[in-house]
Protein backbone atom coordinates (compact mmCIF):
# COMPACT_ATOMS: atom_id res chain seq x y z
CA UNK A 1 0.00 0.00 0.00
CA UNK A 2 2.66 2.44 1.08
CA UNK A 3 4.78 1.44 -1.85
CA UNK A 4 2.01 2.15 -4.27
CA UNK A 5 1.40 5.59 -2.79
CA UNK A 6 5.10 6.34 -3.02
CA UNK A 7 5.24 5.35 -6.67
CA UNK A 8 2.15 7.38 -7.30
CA UNK A 9 3.62 10.48 -5.73
CA UNK A 10 6.85 10.04 -7.66
CA UNK A 11 4.80 9.73 -10.79
CA UNK A 12 2.83 12.86 -10.00
CA UNK A 13 5.93 14.79 -9.06
CA UNK A 14 7.74 13.78 -12.21
CA UNK A 15 4.69 14.72 -14.26
CA UNK A 16 4.61 18.17 -12.76
CA UNK A 17 8.36 18.36 -13.12
CA UNK A 18 8.03 17.61 -16.81
CA UNK A 19 5.15 20.03 -17.08
CA UNK A 20 6.89 22.85 -15.27
CA UNK A 21 10.59 22.43 -15.66
CA UNK A 22 10.83 20.69 -19.00
CA UNK A 23 8.00 22.79 -20.43
CA UNK A 24 9.83 25.95 -19.50
CA UNK A 25 13.08 24.63 -20.93
CA UNK A 26 11.49 23.63 -24.22
CA UNK A 27 9.63 26.92 -24.43
CA UNK A 28 12.75 28.96 -23.76
CA UNK A 29 14.79 26.97 -26.27
CA UNK A 30 12.09 27.40 -28.95
CA UNK A 31 11.76 31.12 -28.31
CA UNK A 32 15.48 31.74 -28.23
CA UNK A 33 16.09 29.77 -31.39
CA UNK A 34 13.40 31.77 -33.17
CA UNK A 35 15.08 34.94 -31.92
CA UNK A 36 18.45 33.69 -33.05
CA UNK A 37 17.03 32.94 -36.49
CA UNK A 38 16.39 36.68 -36.91
CA UNK A 39 19.97 37.40 -35.97
CA UNK A 40 21.09 34.75 -38.45
CA UNK A 41 18.84 36.27 -41.09
CA UNK A 42 20.45 39.68 -40.73
CA UNK A 43 23.98 38.28 -40.65
CA UNK A 44 23.09 35.82 -43.42
CA UNK A 45 21.99 38.65 -45.66
CA UNK A 46 25.38 40.33 -45.34
CA UNK A 47 27.18 37.04 -45.86
CA UNK A 48 25.14 36.03 -48.91
CA UNK A 49 25.68 39.39 -50.59
CA UNK A 50 29.39 39.22 -49.83
CA UNK A 51 29.67 35.61 -50.96
CA UNK A 52 27.76 36.16 -54.20
CA UNK A 53 29.42 39.48 -54.94
CA UNK A 54 33.00 38.65 -54.09
CA UNK A 55 33.82 37.37 -57.60
CA UNK A 56 33.08 40.77 -59.03
CA UNK A 57 34.84 42.58 -56.21
CA UNK A 58 37.90 40.38 -56.78
CA UNK A 59 37.98 41.04 -60.51
CA UNK A 60 37.52 44.79 -60.26
CA UNK A 61 38.94 45.41 -56.81
CA UNK A 62 36.79 47.00 -54.10
CA UNK A 63 38.05 50.51 -54.85
CA UNK A 64 37.86 49.88 -58.58
CA UNK A 65 34.28 48.64 -58.29
CA UNK A 66 33.25 51.68 -56.28
CA UNK A 67 35.00 54.29 -58.40
CA UNK A 68 34.71 52.99 -61.95
CA UNK A 69 31.87 54.45 -63.98
CA UNK A 70 32.03 51.86 -66.73
CA UNK A 71 29.08 49.41 -66.75
CA UNK A 72 29.25 47.17 -69.78
CA UNK A 73 27.48 43.82 -69.41
CA UNK A 74 27.48 43.12 -73.15
CA UNK A 75 30.94 43.46 -74.68
CA UNK A 76 33.78 44.18 -72.31
CA UNK A 77 32.21 42.77 -69.14
CA UNK A 78 33.55 45.59 -67.03
CA UNK A 79 31.45 46.67 -64.07
CA UNK A 80 31.71 49.78 -61.91
CA UNK A 81 29.10 51.00 -59.48
CA UNK A 82 29.84 54.72 -59.43
CA UNK A 83 26.89 55.81 -61.67
CA UNK A 84 24.43 53.97 -59.46
CA UNK A 85 26.03 55.11 -56.23
CA UNK A 86 25.88 58.66 -57.51
CA UNK A 87 22.32 58.27 -58.76
CA UNK A 88 21.14 56.88 -55.42
CA UNK A 89 22.83 59.60 -53.39
CA UNK A 90 21.63 62.45 -55.62
CA UNK A 91 18.00 61.28 -55.81
CA UNK A 92 17.81 60.52 -52.09
CA UNK A 93 19.44 63.76 -50.95
CA UNK A 94 17.32 65.71 -53.42
CA UNK A 95 14.17 63.99 -52.21
CA UNK A 96 15.01 64.68 -48.57
CA UNK A 97 15.76 68.35 -49.32
CA UNK A 98 12.40 68.72 -51.10
CA UNK A 99 10.46 66.72 -48.49
CA UNK A 100 11.98 68.02 -45.25
CA UNK A 101 10.19 71.34 -44.72
CA UNK A 102 6.77 70.38 -46.10
CA UNK A 103 6.79 67.21 -44.00
CA UNK A 104 7.63 69.15 -40.83
CA UNK A 105 5.05 71.79 -41.73
CA UNK A 106 2.31 69.15 -41.95
CA UNK A 107 3.43 67.57 -38.69
CA UNK A 108 3.43 70.93 -36.87
CA UNK A 109 0.07 71.79 -38.38
CA UNK A 110 -1.64 68.60 -37.25
CA UNK A 111 0.07 68.52 -33.86
CA UNK A 112 -0.26 72.17 -32.90
CA UNK A 113 -2.75 74.16 -34.93
CA UNK A 114 -5.39 71.94 -36.44
CA UNK A 115 -8.54 71.22 -34.43
CA UNK A 116 -8.52 67.69 -33.10
CA UNK A 117 -10.94 66.19 -35.63
CA UNK A 118 -9.10 67.71 -38.59
CA UNK A 119 -5.73 66.68 -37.17
CA UNK A 120 -6.99 63.13 -36.78
CA UNK A 121 -8.27 63.01 -40.34
CA UNK A 122 -5.04 64.35 -41.80
CA UNK A 123 -2.93 62.07 -39.63
CA UNK A 124 -4.88 59.00 -40.68
CA UNK A 125 -4.56 60.11 -44.27
CA UNK A 126 -0.81 60.52 -43.89
CA UNK A 127 -0.51 57.00 -42.50
CA UNK A 128 -2.70 55.63 -45.26
CA UNK A 129 -0.71 57.38 -47.96
CA UNK A 130 2.50 56.02 -46.46
CA UNK A 131 1.02 52.57 -47.04
CA UNK A 132 0.33 53.08 -50.76
CA UNK A 133 2.43 50.50 -52.60
CA UNK A 134 5.32 51.94 -54.52
CA UNK A 135 4.21 50.34 -57.82
CA UNK A 136 0.91 52.21 -57.63
CA UNK A 137 2.76 55.49 -57.31
CA UNK A 138 4.97 54.29 -60.17
CA UNK A 139 2.11 53.66 -62.59
CA UNK A 140 0.71 57.10 -61.81
CA UNK A 141 4.16 58.53 -62.46
CA UNK A 142 4.48 56.82 -65.83
CA UNK A 143 1.11 57.77 -67.26
CA UNK A 144 0.26 61.04 -65.54
CA UNK A 145 3.19 62.74 -63.86
CA UNK A 146 5.91 62.21 -66.47
CA UNK A 147 3.89 63.37 -69.51
CA UNK A 148 2.65 66.36 -67.54
CA UNK A 149 6.13 67.37 -66.35
CA UNK A 150 7.47 66.92 -69.88
CA UNK A 151 4.88 69.27 -71.36
CA UNK A 152 4.75 71.84 -68.61
CA UNK A 153 8.25 71.97 -67.18
CA UNK A 154 11.01 70.11 -68.98
CA UNK A 155 10.36 71.10 -72.57
CA UNK A 156 9.68 74.82 -71.92
CA UNK A 157 12.83 75.06 -69.80
CA UNK A 158 14.79 73.19 -72.44
CA UNK A 159 13.56 75.44 -75.27
CA UNK A 160 14.27 78.49 -73.18
CA UNK A 161 17.81 77.27 -72.55
CA UNK A 162 18.20 76.47 -76.25
CA UNK A 163 17.35 80.03 -77.21
CA UNK A 164 18.97 82.00 -74.44
CA UNK A 165 21.70 80.12 -72.68
CA UNK A 166 22.99 77.12 -74.55
CA UNK A 167 25.75 76.48 -72.01
CA UNK A 168 23.03 75.09 -69.73
CA UNK A 169 22.02 72.38 -72.18
CA UNK A 170 24.59 69.74 -71.19
CA UNK A 171 23.54 70.15 -67.54
CA UNK A 172 19.82 70.00 -68.27
CA UNK A 173 19.98 66.92 -70.45
CA UNK A 174 17.39 65.29 -72.63
CA UNK A 175 13.85 66.37 -71.62
CA UNK A 176 12.17 63.03 -72.35
CA UNK A 177 10.43 63.11 -68.99
CA UNK A 178 11.92 59.96 -67.54
CA UNK A 179 14.93 60.94 -65.51
CA UNK A 180 16.58 62.26 -62.42
CA UNK A 181 14.18 65.15 -61.77
CA UNK A 182 11.01 63.08 -62.09
CA UNK A 183 12.38 60.31 -59.89
CA UNK A 184 13.53 62.77 -57.23
CA UNK A 185 10.18 64.57 -57.04
CA UNK A 186 8.21 61.32 -56.84
CA UNK A 187 10.63 60.03 -54.22
CA UNK A 188 10.07 63.21 -52.21
CA UNK A 189 6.30 62.74 -52.43
CA UNK A 190 6.72 59.19 -51.19
CA UNK A 191 8.86 59.99 -48.16
CA UNK A 192 6.84 63.01 -47.01
CA UNK A 193 4.18 60.91 -45.20
CA UNK A 194 6.90 58.84 -43.56
CA UNK A 195 8.83 61.90 -42.35
CA UNK A 196 5.59 63.55 -41.24
CA UNK A 197 4.54 60.56 -39.14
CA UNK A 198 7.92 60.36 -37.38
CA UNK A 199 8.04 64.13 -36.81
CA UNK A 200 4.53 64.08 -35.38
CA UNK A 201 5.59 61.35 -32.93
CA UNK A 202 8.57 63.46 -31.86
CA UNK A 203 6.40 66.56 -31.35
CA UNK A 204 3.85 64.58 -29.35
CA UNK A 205 6.55 63.63 -26.88
CA UNK A 206 7.28 67.23 -25.91
CA UNK A 207 6.04 67.66 -22.32
CA UNK A 208 3.12 69.96 -21.68
CA UNK A 209 5.13 71.97 -19.14
CA UNK A 210 7.56 72.95 -21.85
CA UNK A 211 4.76 74.62 -23.81
CA UNK A 212 3.05 76.12 -20.77
CA UNK A 213 6.27 77.73 -19.58
CA UNK A 214 6.68 79.48 -22.92
CA UNK A 215 3.04 80.58 -22.94
CA UNK A 216 3.48 81.96 -19.43
CA UNK A 217 6.27 84.19 -20.72
CA UNK A 218 3.78 85.70 -23.13
CA UNK A 219 4.87 83.96 -26.28
CA UNK A 220 2.53 83.67 -29.24
CA UNK A 221 1.62 80.21 -30.49
CA UNK A 222 4.24 80.29 -33.22
CA UNK A 223 6.89 81.47 -30.78
CA UNK A 224 6.01 78.58 -28.48
CA UNK A 225 6.53 76.17 -31.35
CA UNK A 226 9.78 77.76 -32.42
CA UNK A 227 11.32 78.27 -28.99
CA UNK A 228 9.87 75.43 -26.90
CA UNK A 229 8.56 72.64 -29.09
CA UNK A 230 10.93 72.21 -32.02
CA UNK A 231 14.16 72.47 -30.01
CA UNK A 232 12.89 69.75 -27.70
CA UNK A 233 11.73 67.53 -30.53
CA UNK A 234 14.71 68.04 -32.79
CA UNK A 235 16.36 64.73 -31.88
CA UNK A 236 13.28 62.85 -33.02
CA UNK A 237 12.88 65.05 -36.07
CA UNK A 238 16.51 64.51 -37.12
CA UNK A 239 16.30 60.77 -36.57
CA UNK A 240 13.05 60.67 -38.52
CA UNK A 241 14.66 62.50 -41.43
CA UNK A 242 17.61 60.13 -41.44
CA UNK A 243 15.23 57.16 -41.45
CA UNK A 244 13.31 58.73 -44.32
CA UNK A 245 16.60 59.14 -46.13
CA UNK A 246 17.19 55.42 -45.62
CA UNK A 247 13.72 54.76 -47.02
CA UNK A 248 14.56 56.87 -50.06
CA UNK A 249 17.82 54.98 -50.64
CA UNK A 250 16.05 51.65 -50.71
CA UNK A 251 12.97 52.77 -52.60
CA UNK A 252 12.93 50.61 -55.70
CA UNK A 253 9.87 50.27 -57.86
CA UNK A 254 8.69 53.85 -58.34
CA UNK A 255 12.24 55.00 -59.03
CA UNK A 256 12.95 52.13 -61.43
CA UNK A 257 9.79 53.01 -63.34
CA UNK A 258 10.55 56.72 -63.62
CA UNK A 259 14.29 57.27 -63.71
CA UNK A 260 14.83 56.13 -67.29
CA UNK A 261 17.56 53.62 -66.47
CA UNK A 262 20.66 54.83 -68.26
CA UNK A 263 23.69 53.17 -66.85
CA UNK A 264 26.50 55.63 -67.36
CA UNK A 265 27.75 59.13 -66.86
CA UNK A 266 27.46 62.03 -67.38
CA UNK A 267 24.58 62.99 -65.16
CA UNK A 268 22.03 65.58 -66.17
CA UNK A 269 19.10 67.11 -64.32
CA UNK A 270 16.31 66.02 -66.65
CA UNK A 271 18.07 63.15 -68.36
CA UNK A 272 17.75 59.46 -67.55
CA UNK A 273 19.96 57.92 -64.87
CA UNK A 274 19.91 54.86 -62.61
CA UNK A 275 20.07 54.05 -58.92
CA UNK A 276 21.40 50.96 -57.18
CA UNK A 277 17.99 49.33 -56.63
CA UNK A 278 16.79 50.25 -60.12
CA UNK A 279 19.75 48.60 -61.84
CA UNK A 280 19.28 45.43 -59.81
CA UNK A 281 15.59 45.33 -60.73
CA UNK A 282 16.24 45.95 -64.41
CA UNK A 283 19.15 43.67 -65.04
CA UNK A 284 18.94 40.86 -62.52
CA UNK A 285 16.28 38.91 -64.40
CA UNK A 286 18.18 39.16 -67.66
CA UNK A 287 21.73 38.69 -66.40
CA UNK A 288 23.33 35.57 -67.89
CA UNK A 289 27.05 36.14 -67.30
CA UNK A 290 28.21 35.07 -63.85
CA UNK A 291 30.28 38.22 -63.52
CA UNK A 292 27.23 40.33 -64.30
CA UNK A 293 25.14 38.56 -61.63
CA UNK A 294 27.99 38.84 -59.17
CA UNK A 295 28.35 42.56 -59.89
CA UNK A 296 24.65 43.10 -59.23
CA UNK A 297 25.03 41.23 -55.94
CA UNK A 298 28.02 43.43 -55.14
CA UNK A 299 25.83 46.48 -55.76
CA UNK A 300 23.39 44.91 -53.31
CA UNK A 301 26.25 44.69 -50.83
CA UNK A 302 27.04 48.38 -51.27
CA UNK A 303 23.34 49.14 -50.75
CA UNK A 304 23.39 46.98 -47.61
CA UNK A 305 26.39 48.82 -46.17
CA UNK A 306 24.89 52.25 -46.89
CA UNK A 307 21.52 51.31 -45.39
CA UNK A 308 23.27 49.87 -42.36
CA UNK A 309 25.23 53.08 -41.81
CA UNK A 310 22.10 55.23 -42.21
CA UNK A 311 20.11 53.09 -39.76
CA UNK A 312 22.83 53.00 -37.14
CA UNK A 313 23.25 56.76 -37.54
CA UNK A 314 19.53 57.26 -36.92
CA UNK A 315 19.70 55.10 -33.80
CA UNK A 316 22.73 57.10 -32.64
CA UNK A 317 20.92 60.41 -33.14
CA UNK A 318 17.86 59.23 -31.23
CA UNK A 319 20.01 58.18 -28.31
CA UNK A 320 22.24 61.24 -28.41
CA UNK A 321 19.78 64.06 -29.01
CA UNK A 322 16.50 63.00 -27.50
CA UNK A 323 17.46 63.19 -23.82
CA UNK A 324 19.37 66.46 -23.93
CA UNK A 325 16.97 67.97 -26.46
CA UNK A 326 16.05 71.53 -25.66
CA UNK A 327 18.80 72.16 -23.16
CA UNK A 328 20.93 74.32 -25.35
CA UNK A 329 18.44 76.97 -26.44
Amino acid at each position, binding site marked *: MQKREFVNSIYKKSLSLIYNWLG*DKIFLITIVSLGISIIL*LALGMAWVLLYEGHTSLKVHGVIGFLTSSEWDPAVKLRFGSLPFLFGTVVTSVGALVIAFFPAIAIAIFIAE*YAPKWLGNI*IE*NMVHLIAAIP*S*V*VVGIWGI*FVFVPWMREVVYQPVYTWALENNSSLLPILGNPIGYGMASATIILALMIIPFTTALTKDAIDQVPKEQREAAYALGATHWEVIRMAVTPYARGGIMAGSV*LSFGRAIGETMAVAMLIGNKNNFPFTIFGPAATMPSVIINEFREAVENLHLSSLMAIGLVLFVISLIVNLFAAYITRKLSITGGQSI
Partner: protein
Amino acid sequence: MCSYKKTEKSLLQRKIHDKFMVALLMISTIVVMTPLIIIVGYVVYNGIGAINADFFTQELGSPTRAIQGRPTGLVHTMVGTAVVDLLALIISAPVGIGAGIMLSEYPDHKLNPFLRIMNDTLNGMPAILKGLLAFAVIVKPMGSFSGLAGGVALAFVMIPIIARSTESALMNIPWSIREAGLAIGLPRWRVVLSTVIPAARTGLVTGFLIAFARAAGEAAPLLFTSFGNNYLPNHWTGMIFGPVDTLPQRLYSLAISPYKEWHSMGWAAGIVLLSFVIILFVISRLLTKQKH
Protein backbone atom coordinates in the same frame (compact mmCIF):
# COMPACT_ATOMS: atom_id res chain seq x y z
CA MET B 1 19.05 83.99 -25.60
CA CYS B 2 19.43 85.41 -29.03
CA SER B 3 15.85 84.61 -29.78
CA TYR B 4 14.73 87.55 -27.66
CA LYS B 5 16.07 90.06 -30.16
CA LYS B 6 13.25 89.30 -32.52
CA THR B 7 10.60 89.70 -29.84
CA GLU B 8 11.41 93.40 -29.57
CA LYS B 9 8.77 93.69 -32.28
CA SER B 10 5.42 95.03 -31.19
CA LEU B 11 2.74 92.61 -30.04
CA LEU B 12 0.72 93.32 -33.18
CA GLN B 13 3.69 92.41 -35.37
CA ARG B 14 4.20 89.19 -33.45
CA LYS B 15 0.55 88.27 -33.77
CA ILE B 16 0.63 88.97 -37.50
CA HIS B 17 3.71 86.78 -37.74
CA ASP B 18 1.83 84.06 -35.89
CA LYS B 19 -1.12 84.22 -38.26
CA PHE B 20 1.22 84.29 -41.23
CA MET B 21 2.91 81.08 -40.10
CA VAL B 22 -0.45 79.35 -39.59
CA ALA B 23 -1.43 80.28 -43.12
CA LEU B 24 1.91 79.03 -44.43
CA LEU B 25 1.55 75.71 -42.64
CA MET B 26 -2.01 75.27 -43.89
CA ILE B 27 -1.03 76.06 -47.45
CA SER B 28 1.89 73.64 -47.42
CA THR B 29 -0.32 70.92 -45.92
CA ILE B 30 -2.84 71.38 -48.70
CA VAL B 31 -0.18 71.60 -51.41
CA VAL B 32 1.49 68.39 -50.31
CA MET B 33 -1.63 66.38 -49.58
CA THR B 34 -3.30 67.21 -52.90
CA PRO B 35 -1.03 65.25 -55.27
CA LEU B 36 -1.15 62.28 -52.93
CA ILE B 37 -4.93 62.26 -53.03
CA ILE B 38 -4.81 62.82 -56.79
CA ILE B 39 -2.80 59.59 -57.14
CA VAL B 40 -5.61 57.58 -55.56
CA GLY B 41 -8.17 59.41 -57.66
CA TYR B 42 -6.32 58.70 -60.90
CA VAL B 43 -5.89 55.01 -60.11
CA VAL B 44 -9.62 54.62 -59.51
CA TYR B 45 -10.58 56.77 -62.52
CA ASN B 46 -8.34 54.97 -64.98
CA GLY B 47 -8.77 51.47 -63.69
CA ILE B 48 -12.48 51.25 -63.06
CA GLY B 49 -13.20 50.74 -66.78
CA ALA B 50 -11.06 47.63 -66.98
CA ILE B 51 -12.70 45.94 -64.02
CA ASN B 52 -15.33 43.47 -65.19
CA ALA B 53 -16.19 39.82 -64.74
CA ASP B 54 -13.42 38.71 -67.11
CA PHE B 55 -10.88 40.58 -65.04
CA PHE B 56 -11.55 38.27 -62.10
CA THR B 57 -12.11 35.01 -64.00
CA GLN B 58 -9.72 34.89 -66.98
CA GLU B 59 -5.99 34.35 -67.35
CA LEU B 60 -3.82 37.06 -68.86
CA GLY B 61 -2.31 35.04 -71.70
CA SER B 62 -0.20 36.60 -74.42
CA PRO B 63 -0.50 40.26 -75.41
CA THR B 64 -2.34 39.39 -78.64
CA ARG B 65 -5.23 38.16 -76.56
CA ALA B 66 -5.76 41.64 -75.15
CA ILE B 67 -5.12 43.39 -78.46
CA GLN B 68 -7.66 41.25 -80.32
CA GLY B 69 -10.18 41.95 -77.60
CA ARG B 70 -10.49 38.36 -76.42
CA PRO B 71 -11.29 38.00 -72.72
CA THR B 72 -8.26 38.41 -70.48
CA GLY B 73 -7.99 38.94 -66.80
CA LEU B 74 -5.81 38.52 -63.78
CA VAL B 75 -7.34 35.56 -61.97
CA HIS B 76 -3.99 33.76 -61.91
CA THR B 77 -2.44 36.88 -60.38
CA MET B 78 -4.96 37.06 -57.57
CA VAL B 79 -4.71 33.39 -56.76
CA GLY B 80 -0.93 33.68 -56.87
CA THR B 81 -0.96 36.72 -54.60
CA ALA B 82 -3.12 34.88 -52.08
CA VAL B 83 -0.81 31.84 -52.12
CA VAL B 84 2.43 33.82 -51.85
CA ASP B 85 1.10 36.17 -49.16
CA LEU B 86 -0.29 33.29 -47.11
CA LEU B 87 3.01 31.43 -47.38
CA ALA B 88 4.75 34.58 -46.18
CA LEU B 89 2.37 34.87 -43.24
CA ILE B 90 2.80 31.21 -42.27
CA ILE B 91 6.58 31.47 -42.39
CA SER B 92 6.94 34.83 -40.68
CA ALA B 93 4.34 34.53 -37.90
CA PRO B 94 6.14 31.97 -35.69
CA VAL B 95 9.54 33.61 -36.10
CA GLY B 96 8.23 37.11 -35.50
CA ILE B 97 6.09 36.12 -32.52
CA GLY B 98 8.91 34.03 -31.06
CA ALA B 99 11.37 36.88 -31.24
CA GLY B 100 8.77 39.27 -29.86
CA ILE B 101 8.15 36.96 -26.89
CA MET B 102 11.89 36.66 -26.31
CA LEU B 103 12.27 40.46 -26.26
CA SER B 104 9.35 41.13 -23.96
CA GLU B 105 9.04 38.06 -21.70
CA TYR B 106 12.72 37.37 -21.14
CA PRO B 107 13.99 40.94 -20.80
CA ASP B 108 17.21 39.87 -19.11
CA HIS B 109 18.29 37.50 -21.83
CA LYS B 110 21.87 38.25 -22.85
CA LEU B 111 21.10 38.16 -26.55
CA ASN B 112 18.30 40.73 -26.39
CA PRO B 113 20.22 43.95 -27.08
CA PHE B 114 21.91 42.30 -30.03
CA LEU B 115 18.62 40.83 -31.27
CA ARG B 116 17.01 44.25 -31.10
CA ILE B 117 19.79 45.85 -33.15
CA MET B 118 19.71 43.04 -35.71
CA ASN B 119 15.92 43.21 -35.97
CA ASP B 120 15.99 46.96 -36.56
CA THR B 121 18.77 46.50 -39.10
CA LEU B 122 16.74 43.91 -40.92
CA ASN B 123 13.70 46.17 -40.82
CA GLY B 124 15.68 49.06 -42.26
CA MET B 125 17.07 47.05 -45.15
CA PRO B 126 15.54 47.73 -48.57
CA ALA B 127 13.07 45.02 -49.60
CA ILE B 128 15.03 44.35 -52.75
CA LEU B 129 17.93 42.99 -50.67
CA LYS B 130 15.52 40.55 -49.02
CA GLY B 131 14.62 39.45 -52.51
CA LEU B 132 18.29 38.88 -53.32
CA LEU B 133 18.66 36.87 -50.12
CA ALA B 134 15.65 34.69 -50.98
CA PHE B 135 17.04 34.27 -54.48
CA ALA B 136 20.36 33.02 -53.13
CA VAL B 137 18.80 30.82 -50.44
CA ILE B 138 15.80 29.31 -52.26
CA VAL B 139 15.84 29.95 -56.00
CA LYS B 140 19.47 29.02 -56.60
CA PRO B 141 19.49 25.66 -54.78
CA MET B 142 16.05 24.70 -56.12
CA GLY B 143 16.97 25.71 -59.63
CA SER B 144 13.77 27.54 -60.49
CA PHE B 145 11.73 30.58 -59.59
CA SER B 146 8.89 29.58 -57.30
CA GLY B 147 5.99 30.81 -55.23
CA LEU B 148 7.78 29.43 -52.19
CA ALA B 149 10.77 31.70 -52.85
CA GLY B 150 8.38 34.64 -53.19
CA GLY B 151 6.73 33.73 -49.90
CA VAL B 152 10.10 33.49 -48.18
CA ALA B 153 11.15 36.88 -49.59
CA LEU B 154 7.96 38.50 -48.30
CA ALA B 155 8.40 36.70 -44.98
CA PHE B 156 11.80 38.41 -44.67
CA VAL B 157 9.94 41.69 -45.09
CA MET B 158 7.32 40.79 -42.48
CA ILE B 159 9.44 39.14 -39.78
CA PRO B 160 11.10 42.25 -38.31
CA ILE B 161 7.80 44.19 -38.36
CA ILE B 162 5.94 41.38 -36.58
CA ALA B 163 8.75 40.96 -34.04
CA ARG B 164 8.66 44.66 -33.22
CA SER B 165 4.87 44.88 -32.97
CA THR B 166 4.62 41.68 -30.93
CA GLU B 167 7.19 43.04 -28.50
CA SER B 168 5.30 46.28 -27.98
CA ALA B 169 1.92 44.53 -27.79
CA LEU B 170 3.18 42.17 -25.07
CA MET B 171 4.92 45.02 -23.23
CA ASN B 172 1.55 46.77 -22.96
CA ILE B 173 0.24 43.94 -20.80
CA PRO B 174 0.87 44.85 -17.15
CA TRP B 175 3.32 42.69 -15.21
CA SER B 176 0.66 42.05 -12.59
CA ILE B 177 -1.10 39.67 -14.99
CA ARG B 178 2.05 37.59 -15.32
CA GLU B 179 2.57 37.65 -11.56
CA ALA B 180 -1.00 36.50 -11.01
CA GLY B 181 -0.37 33.53 -13.31
CA LEU B 182 2.88 32.64 -11.58
CA ALA B 183 1.22 32.99 -8.17
CA ILE B 184 -1.32 30.28 -8.89
CA GLY B 185 1.52 27.98 -9.84
CA LEU B 186 1.52 28.14 -13.61
CA PRO B 187 4.86 27.51 -15.24
CA ARG B 188 6.28 30.38 -17.22
CA TRP B 189 5.41 28.97 -20.62
CA ARG B 190 1.76 28.62 -19.64
CA VAL B 191 1.76 32.16 -18.29
CA VAL B 192 2.97 33.45 -21.66
CA LEU B 193 0.77 31.25 -23.84
CA SER B 194 -2.44 31.29 -21.78
CA THR B 195 -2.51 34.72 -20.15
CA VAL B 196 -0.20 37.20 -21.85
CA ILE B 197 -0.83 36.31 -25.49
CA PRO B 198 -4.63 36.12 -25.22
CA ALA B 199 -4.62 39.47 -23.44
CA ALA B 200 -2.49 41.01 -26.17
CA ARG B 201 -4.23 39.46 -29.16
CA THR B 202 -5.64 42.70 -30.55
CA GLY B 203 -2.18 44.21 -30.61
CA LEU B 204 -0.76 41.08 -32.20
CA VAL B 205 -3.38 41.04 -34.95
CA THR B 206 -2.84 44.74 -35.63
CA GLY B 207 0.87 44.09 -36.02
CA PHE B 208 0.17 41.24 -38.44
CA LEU B 209 -2.11 43.42 -40.52
CA ILE B 210 0.46 46.21 -40.73
CA ALA B 211 3.20 43.77 -41.72
CA PHE B 212 0.87 42.10 -44.18
CA ALA B 213 -0.13 45.39 -45.79
CA ARG B 214 3.50 46.33 -46.16
CA ALA B 215 4.48 43.00 -47.69
CA ALA B 216 1.44 42.80 -49.97
CA GLY B 217 2.53 45.97 -51.76
CA GLU B 218 6.14 44.94 -52.30
CA ALA B 219 7.07 44.16 -55.88
CA ALA B 220 10.84 44.42 -55.76
CA PRO B 221 11.62 41.16 -53.93
CA LEU B 222 9.11 39.19 -56.02
CA LEU B 223 10.54 40.00 -59.43
CA PHE B 224 13.38 37.56 -59.03
CA THR B 225 11.84 35.08 -56.61
CA SER B 226 8.29 34.29 -57.77
CA PHE B 227 9.16 35.85 -61.16
CA GLY B 228 5.67 36.08 -62.69
CA ASN B 229 3.56 33.92 -64.97
CA ASN B 230 0.95 34.75 -67.59
CA TYR B 231 -1.09 31.60 -66.95
CA LEU B 232 -2.47 29.54 -64.11
CA PRO B 233 -0.25 26.51 -63.48
CA ASN B 234 -1.70 23.16 -64.57
CA HIS B 235 -1.52 21.66 -61.12
CA TRP B 236 -1.85 23.36 -57.75
CA THR B 237 1.74 22.45 -56.78
CA GLY B 238 2.81 24.79 -59.58
CA MET B 239 1.70 27.62 -57.31
CA ILE B 240 4.36 26.70 -54.78
CA PHE B 241 7.15 25.18 -56.82
CA GLY B 242 6.77 27.01 -60.11
CA PRO B 243 6.86 30.67 -61.16
CA VAL B 244 3.82 32.50 -59.80
CA ASP B 245 2.21 35.79 -60.64
CA THR B 246 1.61 38.37 -57.92
CA LEU B 247 -0.28 41.65 -58.06
CA PRO B 248 2.47 44.22 -57.48
CA GLN B 249 4.88 42.47 -59.82
CA ARG B 250 2.16 42.05 -62.49
CA LEU B 251 1.25 45.71 -62.10
CA TYR B 252 4.86 46.64 -62.80
CA SER B 253 5.05 44.37 -65.87
CA LEU B 254 1.76 45.72 -67.23
CA ALA B 255 2.78 49.33 -66.67
CA ILE B 256 6.11 49.04 -68.51
CA SER B 257 4.63 46.94 -71.34
CA PRO B 258 4.06 48.65 -74.72
CA TYR B 259 0.40 47.62 -75.05
CA LYS B 260 -2.38 50.06 -74.36
CA GLU B 261 -4.84 47.34 -73.34
CA TRP B 262 -2.41 46.12 -70.73
CA HIS B 263 -1.96 49.62 -69.36
CA SER B 264 -5.61 49.86 -68.41
CA MET B 265 -5.39 46.40 -66.84
CA GLY B 266 -2.43 47.76 -64.89
CA TRP B 267 -4.59 50.56 -63.51
CA ALA B 268 -7.26 48.01 -62.60
CA ALA B 269 -4.64 45.92 -60.81
CA GLY B 270 -3.74 49.15 -59.01
CA ILE B 271 -7.33 49.46 -57.77
CA VAL B 272 -7.32 45.90 -56.44
CA LEU B 273 -3.95 46.34 -54.75
CA LEU B 274 -4.88 49.71 -53.32
CA SER B 275 -8.24 48.58 -51.97
CA PHE B 276 -6.58 45.54 -50.40
CA VAL B 277 -4.04 47.73 -48.62
CA ILE B 278 -6.70 50.26 -47.59
CA ILE B 279 -8.94 47.52 -46.16
CA LEU B 280 -6.06 46.10 -44.13
CA PHE B 281 -5.20 49.60 -42.97
CA VAL B 282 -8.74 50.46 -41.92
CA ILE B 283 -9.17 47.19 -40.00
CA SER B 284 -5.90 47.73 -38.15
CA ARG B 285 -6.93 51.32 -37.29
CA LEU B 286 -10.31 50.18 -36.01
CA LEU B 287 -8.68 47.49 -33.88
CA THR B 288 -6.28 50.01 -32.38
CA LYS B 289 -9.12 52.39 -31.63
CA GLN B 290 -11.18 49.65 -30.02
CA LYS B 291 -8.30 48.80 -27.72
CA HIS B 292 -8.04 52.25 -26.16
